[in-house]
């Protein structure tokens, strides 16, 4: 069985989502299995139309900072989050949505991009995966 990478995506910040997806895609590219657990603010990004909506974790400056970073990213030809999450799925990555977050935040399955989500779960699913993972991160 392949080694695993398991990442909790608790933050909904754009830059942190980049970190999570780049690491996860790197793991898949290098032959590992990878799972992303979306919880709290992270889960907001799985709402329809929500993926690219996150603020910058620092220097957001009411959107000006994000706009500047975005421009620099485009210049450097950094892939969009949409492309990265598409690649993640294409390489067999697994996405889990935290059910408790859905309850707390009043998010229904139909509010989320159900096509991306493989499982709806709780901490038990995460621990089951994480305990047999070579890499586990909290973003």
């Amino acid at each position, binding site marked *: 069985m392949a080694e695993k990478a398991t990442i909790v995506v608790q933050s909904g910040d754009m830059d942190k989502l980049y970190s999570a997806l780049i690491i996860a*895609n790197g793991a898949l590219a290098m032959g590992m299995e990878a799972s992303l657990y979306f919880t709290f603010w992270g889960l907001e990004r799985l709402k329809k139309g929500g993926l690219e909506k996150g603020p910058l974790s620092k220097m957001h400056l009411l959107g000006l900072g994000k706009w500047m970073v975005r421009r620099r990213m485009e210049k450097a030809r950094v892939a969009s989050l949409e492309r990265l999450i598409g*690649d993640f799925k294409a390489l067999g990555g697994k996405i889990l949505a935290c059910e408790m977050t859905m309850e707390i935040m009043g998010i229904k399955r139909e509010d989320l991009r159900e096509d991306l989500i493989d499982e709806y779960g709780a901490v038990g699913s995460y621990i089951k995966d994480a305990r047999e993972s070579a890499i586990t991160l909290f973003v």
Partner: protein
Amino acid sequence: MVEIKVDVRGETCPVPLVEMRKALRHAAPGDIVEIIGTHPASKKEIPMAVEALQLELLAVEGTDTDWVIRIRR
């Protein structure tokens, strides 16, 4: 035997690695995947991935900013 060409010139992290993996997933055992790129770190990291995937690295040619890597699945 098929030869698959992947052009990731101008692309940055993690796209070259991801496109390499996608091509390898589509390749059959024995097929050759050739990747052309310009991202310096990927020239080092694609061979690392090839080793991790236990595949055969046939060639790494060119400079850090203009390279060709050939892999046999």
